[in-house]
């Protein structure tokens, strides 16, 4: 079943004017990107900084509207939904960011932060925070602790607990393991795969690291300056990259 369908999506930004009378230059951050993501599957989006991968993530999350094209989540066009309907849909798709320290309120217990999406959705909280902590390999008692009491890897577990507490169908992970040590990275990648198996999550996995993508994703989309230069099965692209850009990403990651 197709959960997420991105159709010819384009997003442009107006840059600061360079001369008073000339029109401001326009940057096309994402240029006619298309893909579909099935329920329970993982799609990787790879590219360098500035390739448009985070812009794509923000559009999928409904934080930004595309200038052209449509994003259908469960058949509903995100940009066409009124804000109240988007809010109602929010518990079904959640996001994990690169820096868990920046995305957790340092003055609130992690239990409070994990319950945030439930409160936003007006849902019952009892028991769900403990359950989410259990899912990510932390103890229910950890809910009373503050973010600084955790290591980097544990904080990312907390961020994942918050993202899954509403039992979403889609998780958007933007560089979710990039800041972690290699050994912790492996633990978090395994956790994401476990959660996917248990909860049937679909994951949109955004990363600059093709090695990481190859370990967790079925399919991959390669972005360069907003343009999709290649997409297909990970194994296929790793074996025979179709563009010089993909090849350079593989080489840089020590994979070729």
């Amino acid at each position: 079943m197709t959960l997420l369908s991105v159709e010819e999506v384009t997003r442009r930004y107006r840059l600061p004017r360079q001369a008073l009378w000339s029109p401001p230059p326009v940057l096309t951050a994402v240029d006619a990107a298309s893909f579909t993501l099935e329920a329970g599957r993982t799609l990787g989006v790879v590219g360098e900084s500035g390739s448009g991968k985070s812009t794509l993530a923000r559009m999928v999350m409904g934080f930004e509207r595309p200038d052209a094209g449509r994003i259908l989540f469960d058949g509903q066009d995100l940009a066409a939904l009124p804000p109240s309907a988007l809010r109602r849909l929010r518990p079904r798709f959640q996001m994990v960011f690169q820096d868990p320290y920046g995305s957790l309120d340092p003055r609130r217990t992690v239990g409070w932060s994990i319950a945030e999406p439930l409160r936003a959705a007006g849902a019952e909280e009892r028991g769900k925070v403990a359950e989410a902590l259990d899912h990510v390999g932390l103890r229910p008692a950890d809910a009373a602790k503050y973010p600084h009491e955790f290591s980097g890897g544990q904080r990312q577990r907390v961020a994942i607990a918050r993202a899954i507490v509403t039992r979403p169908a889609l998780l958007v992970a933007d560089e979710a393991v990039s800041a972690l040590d290699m050994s912790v990275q492996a633990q978090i990648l395994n956790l994401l795969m476990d959660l996917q198996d248990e909860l049937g999550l679909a994951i949109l996995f955004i990363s600059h690291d093709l090695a990481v993508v190859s370990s967790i994703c079925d399919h991959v989309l390669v972005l360069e300056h907003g343009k999709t230069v290649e997409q297909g099965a990970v194994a296929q692209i790793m074996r025979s990259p179709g563009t010089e850009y993909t090849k350079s990403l593989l080489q840089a990651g020590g994979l070729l």
Partner: protein
Amino acid sequence: MIEAAALTVDMGAGQAVREASFVIAPGDRIGIVGESGCGKTMLGLALMGMVPDAGHVSGSLMIDGIQMVGAGEVTWQRLRARRVAMIFQEPMAALNPIKRVGETVMEPMMVHLGLGRDAARARALELFREVGIPDPEARLRQFPHEISGGQRQRVLIALALACDPGVLIADEPTTALDANVALRVTQLLVGLAARRTMGLVFISHDLAAVARATERVMVMYGGDIVERGATDEVLAQPRHPYTRGLLSARPSSGNMRATGGRRGRLPTIPGSVPPLAELAPGCRFAGRCPVELKVCNGARPPRQGNMICHRAEEGA
């Protein structure tokens, strides 16, 4: 030339670096790998005389023939930047946001080398060219926020090279960068070490970068150098259980271990690096080690050849 013998950094709560011994000769390129909290950065700071106040340094550290353990700040100031220089983590935090980057690079030359403004400026320009910054004249006048992450890292390298150091310590120089940019920065550091016959200490948890940048490597866990050797050999045939764990946790499709009908998972080292106060008294890796013996938790493992491990004789 740096010679460390039983160099130890005691933080009160525990030893962040325990009896590290090694030599860095001109032109040597040495990697230090390990997880966060294993003492890599603290070792780098010890080589710069910049251990936090709470820390106590003991053992021996000779820099160009001068004993630096117990040396005062005045002695260190004469050596820092000229003999040893460091590129710190987080390029954005290491540059003054309200200063033009040219000024930042000129400052150490005016302070340490006594150069005048014009001479310092000329040399800054030369350094920007050497580290491959395009349009260097314009760059000198820019502020840190106006330049990209990769260029910022090059500015920091130029800054570290300002006083022509004999040894350059690079702490996670590629961690915050895209793979392609990281590759170019690594190549730049290797080239600089060769051209200037400068020692390079490359601290990183990125094994691919360490493989490219260094000839020798030291693997640190819990403040101990648990394994060392030629980079190629250690990465191809790791012997210490910790090194093996680190290498096998590297994400890649070829590394996955499938179990019981599920799709593959990555091998991991169970648990995480404990805080200093909770480190095992014997082998630091005890508690997370897959091949642990009874003796491991109590007695300190002997150093045998290139390894500190109770099972070194059996080849772990």
